[in-house]
């Protein structure tokens, strides 16, 4: 399907580009947000990524999937934006040392809506590259190989980041939920 719309856009049909916007905007936004942790910056990064994709569409050779190629642009733009504004959060260094309260079962404590809220909050509080790895692997369900292709990280780098991300996320959720427990009881 993507190939058909790529041909249409390359033949000058601008409206055909709407297909890509409609199809990938949410995933692109999720990725950009995991890096930038701000909805306005994420929107700008996604917008810029789409414009770059439009400009360079003629150079897309189809060696990888369009989505992989496009998300690589989104990630690059988000990282560029992060570098530009120097917004990298260095929160978890202090938090990784939190005491492990044992097996935490988020489903027992909060409802599904609250769960989503806490997960969003936890993702916002972990470093950008860890949040990105987590988003790509668990939310977007890409393989390690695809993540390597999109980010330019090595395979071992992806695995290390995923391990760190899980740990950071786990600690962050523990911290948030222990506060929740305190307010509940």
């Amino acid at each position: 399907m993507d190939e058909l719309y790529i041909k249409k856009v390359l033949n000058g049909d601008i409206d055909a580009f709407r297909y890509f916007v409609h199809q990938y905007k949410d995933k692109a936004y999720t990725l950009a947000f995991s890096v930038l942790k701000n909805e306005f910056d994420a929107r700008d990064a996604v917008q810029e990524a789409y414009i770059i994709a439009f400009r360079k569409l003629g150079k897309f050779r189809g060696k990888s999937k369009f989505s992989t190629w496009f998300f690589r642009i989104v990630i690059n733009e988000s990282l560029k934006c992060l570098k530009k504004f120097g917004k990298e959060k260095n929160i978890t260094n202090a938090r990784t040392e939190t005491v492990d309260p044992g097996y935490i079962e988020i489903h027992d404590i909060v409802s599904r809506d609250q769960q989503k809220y806490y997960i969003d909050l936890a993702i916002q509080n972990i470093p950008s590259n860890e949040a990105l790895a987590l988003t790509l692997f668990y939310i977007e369900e890409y393989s390690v190989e695809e993540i390597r292709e999109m980010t330019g990280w090595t395979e071992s780098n992806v695995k290390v980041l995923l391990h760190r991300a899980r740990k950071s996320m786990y600690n962050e959720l523990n911290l948030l939920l222990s506060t929740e427990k305190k307010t509940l009881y």
Partner: protein
Amino acid sequence: MEKNYNNDRYFRELLSGSTREMPFSDFEDELIAEIRMEHEKKHLFLRNIKLSWLFFILGMLSGIAIVVVLSFFNDTPSFSFLSDNILSAAIIFICLAILLFAEKLFKISFMQDNY
């Protein structure tokens, strides 16, 4: 018991459905408008490049014609004020202009990504 953070399935379940939705309803329309502008800009840019090449070639031909005409008149006695120095200066000036413009034009033409 295995810690949660080493449990792939636990994380997959935990994070499933955590995809965000673009919260700006006007994003799509705004982006397409931007893309349209970009397309027009590119169109205009390509047209300007074509015109630049046309005027460059016309200028170059005119320059060559001027030099040929000047050297022709240089031999006639009524145009004796055209010394060899003036003719040489004109040739050097025209050659330099051609080189400088050609360099710029080549750069712009082959770096179209930066329009």
